[in-house]
């Protein structure tokens, strides 16, 4: 394990820029390495929340890295549940031995809340100045400089300004924004001028949009009394859509306040609301709003999912897998948010979709499909497995044909072939799911049985943790289902002997050879289960939430008024004409098609000319080319028109030429173009329509008579051909009569 990577020293803030202060006080932080709630059970029964891997890195690393980069020099990590594991980890990963960044652990076994923790820290008397209060499950990349400066400024003016909370405006759909992080709906009232926090209320009741404000609350704020309704509206609209980032900048008084009010337990529910209600002491709380930076706390499984995604989508830059690797091997970023560590063996037929992280040494079998998931170190994934939106931790074995959908799978879990995890499933450490077994949606599965009594949600997750983690699983024994549970459970925890007696039930719960308990859901948690789970929010819940909101942005799409009409012209053009040949062909084809359309639809000559002209421009052609192409099209049409004999053909030609004379002559302004036509005609007679060969002279004569071709053109054509091969002179010879006649006529004129 290498030492954590240092982020650039540029972010380091010198706290003591104030010249007034003589003694330099390093910026301190208190990191609560315990959530003091049970939202991450059953996983947190065996592993502290701050060590849960978030995109393959234990969460606490994100918080510590941020504190370090934000200029904090002194961090006190308060460990409570599984404190040994936390301390061991910090020691092993090198956080405890950083230069310029001191991490001190404070261990306690009898604290049950954040309040207790802060009281204990106060007793230790280690905090000397302003400090940052944060829990070990916060991911952020914000800069503290401005918030700190604001806090200090306020403190100087008003010693009662004891705390600055960091909040962020949530820009997502207001109907579901709180569902994004699975947190409760939050109402905050903030004075827009001073940024003072006036009201703070968390509530889960979504149906009631009404908030009761005390009359006196308004009366106490002189700026609000003037514009009663308007101001209240303003403040409320400010409040909705704000996220509490759970990053607080506190003055030392906060600690003593906790000690004075020994009943303060919860930071927000008791402390913040307590201060806001208490008007005797007059302490004030302010907020600092961040706009572009990232800050979020992982409070439940849904926010675990959301924050993981945000990390993969790089909103938390520089805290992204390919920059921060915390002792993992280097991870490479590929197209479409794919992160790959080294030594991955992946079958050629496996499809690894977008936004997926693959950990070191993972093996993936044939035809396996993985998308939007995080796979940890050393996982073995078999063939034909489907994994979508899952968080699979280290050393997990997934056998062939499993289907995993939006689940969290902890370390060393085994899924036998054909097992299915429905959305929202949590499999805690070392669980074994039997073959073909379908784990129902939203179920929690653990080797430990569900604690029978749940006193309150403040209950401490304290267990003799070391024995849990060091308990060994012998993989080879897995087949032997009847014996394993007993053996394993007894090693898991001495305290839970009663489980053994229930081991028959234990086996049945997860199919053949399955190991683990499916936890019973307590009453009333049905509502919570979708809100707090990793599974995507069910569509009906979203529509429910949407229904309560007025959505007037709906774009109307009736679209059924016109019947679908076909394409005007079949897709003849691939815009791929790179070489001149195909370009020529293309032009001629187009002109011919245009001409035929003109004939069939009886279009005016002017229009035909317009179209051919535009074709000429788009294909970059000369007038001569147009003349040739139009003439070709006419002759083609004449041949294609049914006729019985040569005379019939001649009649056709005459008809076409007389009808469309104008179209042709508009391109025959110059003698060169006329020669071009004759040459073209020769070509036609030789190649595409040999029927014309006997009529060559006749048609030529006809064109002369109709003034399509002048005599000069015919004579220069003959002139041009004089030196050519005999083969090329076939038609010149044929037309010899005409040419002679022309020459004679010319002489006579003279």
């Amino acid at each position: 394990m290498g030492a954590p990577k240092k982020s650039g020293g540029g972010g380091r803030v010198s706290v003591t820029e104030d010249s007034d202060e003589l003694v330099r006080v390093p910026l301190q932080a208190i990191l609560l390495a315990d959530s003091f709630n049970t939202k991450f059970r059953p996983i947190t029964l065996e592993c502290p929340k701050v060590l849960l891997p978030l995109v393959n890195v234990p969460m606490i690393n994100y918080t510590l890295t941020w504190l370090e980069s934000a200029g904090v020099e002194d961090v006190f990590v308060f460990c409570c549940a599984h404190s040994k594991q936390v301390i061991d980890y910090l020691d092993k990963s090198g956080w405890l031995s950083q230069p310029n960044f001191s991490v001190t652990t404070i261990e306690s076994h009898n604290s049950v809340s954040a309040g207790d923790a802060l009281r204990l820290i106060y007793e230790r008397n280690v905090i000397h100045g302003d400090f940052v209060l944060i829990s070990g499950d916060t991911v952020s990349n914000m800069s503290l400089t401005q918030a700190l400066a604001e806090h200090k400024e306020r403190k100087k003016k008003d010693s009662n300004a004891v705390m600055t909370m960091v909040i962020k405006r949530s820009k997502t759909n207001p109907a579901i924004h709180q569902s994004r992080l699975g947190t409760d709906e939050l109402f905050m009232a903030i004075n827009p001028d001073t940024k003072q926090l006036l009201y703070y209320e968390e509530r889960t009741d979504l149906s009631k949009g009404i908030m009761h404000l005390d009359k006196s609350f308004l009366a106490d704020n002189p700026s609000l009394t003037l514009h009663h309704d308007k101001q209240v509206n303003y403040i409320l609209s400010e409040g909705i859509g704000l996220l509490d980032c759970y990053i607080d900048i506190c003055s030392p008084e906060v600690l003593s306040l906790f000690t004075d009010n020994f009943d303060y337990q919860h930071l927000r529910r008791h402390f913040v609301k307590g201060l806001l209600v208490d008007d005797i002491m007059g302490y004030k709380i302010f907020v600092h709003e961040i706009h572009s930076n990232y800050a979020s706390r992982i409070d439940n499984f849904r926010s675990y999912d959301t924050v993981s995604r945000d990390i993969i989508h790089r909103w938390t830059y520089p805290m992204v897998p390919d920059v921060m690797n915390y002792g993992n091997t280097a991870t490479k970023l590929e197209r479409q948010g794919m992160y790959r560590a080294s030594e991955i063996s992946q079958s050629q037929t496996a499809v690894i979709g977008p936004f997926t992280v693959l950990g070191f040494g993972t093996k993936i079998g044939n035809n396996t499909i993985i998308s939007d998931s995080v796979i940890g170190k050393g996982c073995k994934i078999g063939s034909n497995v489907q994994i979508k939106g899952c968080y699979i931790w280290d050393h997990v074995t997934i056998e062939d044909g499993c289907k995993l959908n939006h689940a969290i799978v902890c370390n060393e879990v085994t899924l036998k072939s054909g097992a299915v995890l429905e959305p929202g499933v949590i499999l805690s450490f070392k669980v074994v799911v039997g073959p073909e077994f379908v784990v129902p949606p939203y179920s929690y599965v653990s080797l430990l049985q569900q604690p029978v009594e749940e006193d309150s949600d403040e209950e401490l997750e304290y267990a003799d943790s070391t024995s849990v983690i060091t308990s060994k699983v012998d993989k080879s024994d897995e087949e032997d289902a009847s014996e394993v549970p007993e053996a394993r459970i007894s090693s898991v925890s001495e305290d839970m002997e009663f489980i053994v007696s229930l081991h028959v039930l234990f086996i049945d719960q997860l199919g053949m050879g399955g190991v683990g308990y499916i936890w019973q859901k307590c009453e009333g948690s049905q509502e919570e289960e979708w809100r707090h789970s990793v599974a995507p929010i069910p569509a009906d819940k979203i529509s429910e939430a949407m229904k309560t909101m007025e959505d007037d942005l709906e774009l109307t799409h009736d679209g059924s008024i016109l019947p679908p009409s076909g394409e005007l012209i079949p897709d003849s053009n691939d815009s791929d004409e790179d070489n001149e040949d195909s370009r020529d062909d293309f032009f001629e084809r187009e002109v011919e098609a245009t001409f035929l359309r003109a004939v069939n639809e009886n279009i005016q000559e002017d229009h035909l000319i317009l179209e051919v002209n535009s074709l000429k421009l788009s294909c970059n052609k000369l007038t001569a080319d147009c003349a040739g192409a139009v003439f070709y099209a006419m002759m083609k049409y004449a041949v294609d028109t049914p006729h019985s004999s040569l005379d019939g053909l001649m009649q056709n030609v005459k008809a076409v030429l007389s009808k469309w004379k104008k179209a042709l002559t508009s391109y025959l302004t110059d003698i060169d173009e006329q020669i071009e036509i004759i040459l073209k005609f020769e070509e036609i007679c030789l190649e595409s329509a040999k029927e014309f060969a006997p009529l060559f002279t006749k048609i030529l004569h006809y064109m002369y008579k109709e003034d399509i071709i002048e005599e000069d053109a015919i004579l220069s054509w003959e002139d041009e051909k004089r030196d050519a091969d005999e083969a090329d002179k076939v038609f010149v010879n044929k037309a010899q009569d005409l040419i002679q006649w022309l020459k004679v006529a010319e002489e006579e004129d003279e």
Partner: protein
Amino acid sequence: MFLTLGSLLVLMKELTNPYRPIAGLQYLSGNISGSNARCIAMLQAFQDAIRDYRVPPEKTFVRDLTAKISSYVSFLIECRPLCISMGNAIKFLKTRIAKLPLTLSESESKASLHSDIERFINEKIILADKVIVKHAVTKIRDGDVLLTYGLSSAVEMILLHAHKLGKQFRVIIVDSRPQLRGKILLRRLVEKGLSCTYTQINALSYIMHEVTRVFLGASSVLSNGTVYSGVGTACVAMIAHSFRVPVLVCCEAYKFSERVQLDSICSNELGDPEVISKVLGREDVNYLDGWANTENLQLLNLIYDATPSDYISMIVTDYGMVPPTSVPVIVREYRREQLWI
């Protein structure tokens, strides 16, 4: 948009001397953008103007109204050069006025013009978009990665409709400074739950590898198949072409023009050079501050560019899906039809 429309009307009514420079006109320039929106706003303003119009004594309705409309148009041009679609709409309106039978009374003429304009908006713009959506959606398949540039109302409708039909596809929105209108599209698509990637035009050659189809909007399609559209479109089409990615241009037929243009320099609109010298939200990028004093510096902020027809595989219009070489057919068909209205 309403505000601008309103102010446009007010200004039009107050307009006694069309060449009188009016302060604050430049505000009009950016508020309504996109040629469809501009055209509809203009036509609606004309509707109101015609409604409020009274024939001065000793003048004929047709003649005087035509002159009046011309003055409004020159006023509009003063605010911002017209786009081609607006030119076509004006041409339509003038034809309608000229063809009014002299026997009609003033109120009848007004009613007839009103309904003509209404019909133009409905048939040529709104309905046309619906038909375009219907055609273009058939070209979106499951698993497609569609790239679009900037903001085009037609493309937006296509993408949303395809999403509504349940097609599985991904959208890449390419954008460019200084307008960054792609962000508007991005926001609307993301709100509807489409999976989007947003990038700047500099990253085009990287992202083009993934793309299976390019959908572009257009300000106009010229008679030689050249697509006249927001600056940057040509670049996108060119890169797509070199990656062998089909480029589909979505454009209502009323925007087609019989003009022929080979490059984008000879007829274009120049935007405010100030906006390209400043970077939004980046005060530290100030190298060009005070550039106006520099004599040997010229900032070029082109609004449109011309995409040669070579780079366009297909134009989706309300008359169907056609290759760019068939534009003259549409122009002809369309003009004939317009005479019938």
